[in-house]
């Protein structure tokens, strides 16, 4: 596709359940990023992939959060045993190689609501 695609667009889950969020980056972009946007914390970095490896996963808030990327393309962010404080919009972005001086293009996000 032309842009970064995220699915689902909305996810409602019960506290304690696991959720998987998917990101399909722009074709040819080797770098992929996950961010979280919430009212209380603004936009926070979660993890960055270069190819299939994650040089920087220091933004993941707890060990309930994990992410993987396969084939240098699609990435999945998994949240285990969801808590109400996990409610937020999860954004994915991608860029060409050489992070820092490259523009990150964002998807529309997945709005996660934990009841």
């Amino acid at each position, binding site marked *: 596709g032309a842009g970064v695609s995220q699915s689902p667009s909305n996810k409602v889950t019960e506290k304690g359940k696991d959720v998987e969020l998917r990101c399909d980056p722009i074709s040819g972009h080797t770098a992929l990023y996950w961010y979280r946007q919430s009212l209380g914390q603004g936009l926070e970095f979660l993890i960055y992939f270069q190819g299939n490896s994650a040089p920087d996963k220091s933004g993941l808030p707890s060990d309930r959060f994990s992410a993987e990327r396969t084939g240098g393309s699609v990435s999945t962010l998994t949240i285990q045993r969801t808590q109400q404080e996990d409610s937020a919009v999860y954004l994915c972005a991608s860029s060409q190689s050489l992070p*820092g001086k490259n523009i990150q293009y964002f998807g529309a996000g997945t709005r996660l609501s934990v009841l």
Partner: protein
Amino acid sequence: AQSVSQHNHHVILSEAASLELGCNYSYGGTVNLFWYVQYPGQHLQLLLKYFSGDPLVKGIKGFEAEFIKSKFSFNLRKPSVQWSDTAEYFCAVTRDRGSTLGRLYFGRGTQLTVWP
């Protein structure tokens, strides 16, 4: 602590008024600077960027920003706003080196409301 500060949380203007949104960052090394915009119901879009060279950069829709290294600032300006500029504006920074290379550090955002 590393941070990006946006001074105004909510700015309300009438059409044709001039706009300046402040942004300061706290990193000492080489940085790359961005302004992103999020229109109601839409995803984050790049408004403009600064990597190097002329510190006055022009973006889309008549926006411009000036990088003042001595003040660690990257303020966004537009001489005459339109109703369609109503959106949330985010200042962001990446570093050129270090373990957090590539990570965008965002300010908290400024909600701009323009009255017709």
